[in-house]
């Protein structure tokens, strides 16, 4: 009989004080050296299943469990005193919350100390792991001073120092910017290929990882609904779970094509076949020079010609330096038109969050000016803007501290002198929670909600103040694609009512689909701005997958709807 690296038999698990099981009758195996991707919407049980594979569930979480989990044939219940940590390592979502020590080298040694590894052996393993992960130059650095990507690398290195046979990863890139996320994923793949490490990865951004996996398992409602190859997964998602589709696969599904590509390269080859099948290829590679010049002139004069009363926010030659001495904004100019949906893109450290904090008067420029609705914010306190400008920081937990979501919303209204407890307050609170899909949770503790729901609950506490402008700092971080679509559609509706949205995102797909105006910040200045088509159609890094798939054939495609329409049109021509 084949002994699997990990196997789960008839597994059912209930969290403490819950009637409904989080996992329901699961039978599943992982073979030695496999790279398995666990997919599924938020709350479907992916993270719980992952934690049963190293015994944290039920050992750490409590609750009731039925069935068996085995590692190399041995029942986890027979492996006492966390000795499973030698064989099955785990990396968590938030790099901040899994580091224990202050220095990189000591952090890597922490697990080895727990496993009582002799000192000489520890030295060898620490040195090896630091070399493999290219952490040697950082060995004496404080973990608090590392970037998010470096912290996650240290977290993975500290687990790998234990030399486990299996690595479990629970959304290890969800808190990272795209560059750092890619680096981490490449590293995981390298460990799988070079070290023969078995990998089980939970990830929301399937477009980043699907092509890396040997096998995909999709969960829904505590059960494994699909288990098979990545290619079959694309067909399964197209038929049963469209929210799990990759952007390029979704493009072909919505374009009425039978192909189910998993990567941009696959998609491009199908598109090439389609275009080359036509007698005459239309030359759409770029606008004629005169047209490009006209667009540039329009862009140059668009901001300058705008009347002051049409501007929701304006930054003029803004300079700002933090106490640490680092200058973040270096003479930044930007106009955000009223009633626009503006997405700010840019690398980490470009000044995106600092700019947003200027727009809500949490920071004030040391040089230059920041205006909100034409009013200079130099001497305005952030509290005075509440009710007019709503601000959502990166951490929704900072907004939630009352017993119920209702109390949380009422607190927000009271702060700016709005009524609570009367019909008007009830109408506004119910309307906001209903549009955000949170009305059933009105009397629940907001801290008990899932990640996506918490994000929306924090947004609700801002919206019940009925602001005319919203500033959102990376609101899509950690959301699954279904939740992102709900949020994007909601924000578009909000803007259609004449209000303004400015958001920071690393999610180019989200910006392309939903924003009307994109701004690229670089080194504390506005590097470029324009419509998604102007900004993303020819981008290298800042280009959505759909745009990349069409590059060279239809250079003005950036959204799913555009791409699907072109595919349908081209299919029609081929058929004709």
């Amino acid at each position: 009989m084949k002994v699997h690296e990990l196997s789960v038999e008839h597994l059912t698990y209930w969290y403490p004080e819950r009637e409904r099981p989080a996992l329901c009758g699961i039978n599943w195996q992982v073979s030695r050296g496999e790279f398995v991707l666990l997919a599924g919407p938020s709350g479907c049980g992916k993270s719980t299943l992952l934690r049963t594979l190293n015994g944290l569930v039920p050992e750490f979480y409590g609750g009731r469990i039925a069935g068996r989990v085995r590692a190399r044939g041995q029942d986890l219940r027979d492996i006492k005193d966390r000795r499973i940590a030698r064989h099955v390592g785990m990396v968590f979502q938030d790099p901040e919350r899994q580091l224990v020590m202050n220095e990189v080298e000591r952090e890597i040694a922490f697990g080895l100390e727990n496993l009582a590894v002799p000192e000489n052996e520890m030295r060898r393993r620490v040195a090896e792991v630091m070399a493999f992960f290219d952490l040697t130059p950082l060995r004496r650095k404080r973990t608090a001073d590392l970037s998010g990507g470096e912290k996650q690398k240290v977290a993975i290195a500290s687990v790998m120092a234990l030399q486990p046979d299996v690595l479990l990863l629970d959304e290890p890139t969800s808190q990272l910017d795209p560059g750092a996320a890619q680096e981490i994923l490449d590293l995981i793949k390298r460990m799988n290929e070079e070290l023969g490490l078995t990998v089980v990865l939970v990830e929301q951004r399937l477009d980043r990882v699907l092509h890396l996996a040997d096998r995909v398992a999709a969960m829904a409602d505590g059960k494994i609904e699909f288990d098979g190859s990545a290619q079959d997964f694309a067909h399964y998602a197209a038929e049963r779970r469209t929210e799990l589709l990759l952007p390029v696969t979704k493009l072909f599904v919505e374009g009425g094509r039978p192909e189910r590509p998993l990567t941009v390269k696959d998609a491009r080859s199908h598109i090439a076949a389609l275009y080359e099948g036509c007698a005459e290829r239309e030359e759409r590679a770029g606008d004629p020079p005169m047209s490009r010049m006209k667009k540039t002139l329009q862009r140059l004069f668009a901001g300058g010609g705008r009347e002051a009363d049409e501007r929701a926010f304006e930054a003029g030659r803004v300079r700002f330096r933090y106490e640490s001495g680092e200058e973040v904004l270096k003479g930044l100019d930007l106009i955000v038109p009223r009633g626009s949906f503006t997405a700010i893109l840019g690398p980490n450290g470009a000044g995106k969050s600092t700019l947003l904090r200027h727009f809500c008067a949490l920071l004030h420029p040391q040089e230059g000016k920041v205006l909100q609705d034409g009013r200079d914010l130099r001497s305005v306190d952030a509290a005075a803007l509440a009710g007019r400008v709503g601000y959502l920081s990166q951490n929704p937990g900072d907004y939630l501290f009352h017993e119920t979501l209702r109390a949380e919303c009422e607190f927000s209204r009271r702060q700016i002198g709005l009524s609570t407890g009367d019909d008007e307050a009830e109408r506004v609170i119910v309307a906001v929670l209903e549009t955000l899909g949170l009305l059933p949770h009105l009397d629940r503790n907001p801290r008990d909600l899932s990640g996506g729901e918490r994000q929306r609950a924090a947004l609700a506490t801002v919206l019940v103040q009925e602001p005319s402008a919203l500033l959102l700092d990376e609101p899509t971080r950690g959301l699954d694609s279904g939740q992102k679509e709900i949020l994007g559609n909601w924000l578009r509706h909000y803007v259609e009512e004449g209000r303004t949205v400015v958001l920071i995102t690393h999610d180019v797909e989200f910006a392309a689909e939903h924003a009307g105006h994109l701004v690229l910040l670089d080194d504390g200045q506005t590097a470029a701005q324009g419509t998604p088509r102007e900004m993303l159609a020819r981008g290298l890094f800042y280009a959505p997958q759909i745009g990349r798939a069409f590059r060279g054939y239809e250079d003005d495609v950036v959204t799913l709807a555009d791409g699907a329409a072109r595919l349908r049109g081209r299919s029609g021509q081929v058929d004709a």
Partner: protein
Amino acid sequence: MSRLSLPTVESDMRHHAGTLAFYPFLLLLLAVLVEHPLYLILLLFVTTAALILRGSLSAFGKTLRFGWAFLLVFFVLSVLINKNGATVLYAGGLNFPVFGKIRLTAESIAYQGMMLLRLLVIFGASTLYVTSLSPDRGFSLFSSFAGRSSVVAMLTTRLISYLSEQTDAVRDVMRTRGVKFEEGSWIKRLQKRNPLLNVLLVSAMEGSWQVAEAMEARGYGMGRRTAYTRERWTGRDGLVWLPMVAALFLAIGEKMSERIDYAFYPRLGPLWPDGGEALAALPVLAVLLLLPAFLLRRRRRNR
């Protein structure tokens, strides 16, 4: 919020963690043993010199910025409560709750002055420890005989800076929700800070749960641990330990012969008894304590 700057590891790898930890401990121990004001002044001088030589004087300044109010209250209350001493400077007729009739004596003021000096040395020695030894090295040093307590201390160190950053973040969020922290009476201001504490408490609880889970996933709690250390005992450490051990024995000897004690009551004793013979150890102790401070000084590196 101002934050205490912790040392980088590279800056103090020349000496063993035990050496770096023992020197502040010795100063602290002597501060508790000694009662004679001149010896305490010497200890304060040595502690200040050690802080200067390690480049930690500004950190001591920060400690005092938060600690001076405590020292002042401690001094005033102790003087008001303590009614011993023969040299009465003031005697009030009114009977106050808790304090009774006020009776200020020169002896009581001098005694509390001595206690103030002692506390300053303790504050200084603590700052010296914190700025000389990184928490990880401290953890490594103590984990072999106090494993669990060391982990708790380590996590507490991390929690302090985490809470400090979190406080700033939550305060900013609350301001954008309309909370005006600086408006209203002080009671109102305190009430406005109440939700701040709620968020911090809940976040800290959630954070500690996640850290605990990550620790358990890496085998914490399996039982006996080993210690990873880069510490190496060198001749430099021996050089530092020699005067430290000599100072310790000298102080114990002087304590046993009561020459580092001082009589505050009923009347203040002479500062310079027996023509200064009793204080002969003072310059020797000064040299023995200043030597380690000099040897442990922070060296500038050329880059």
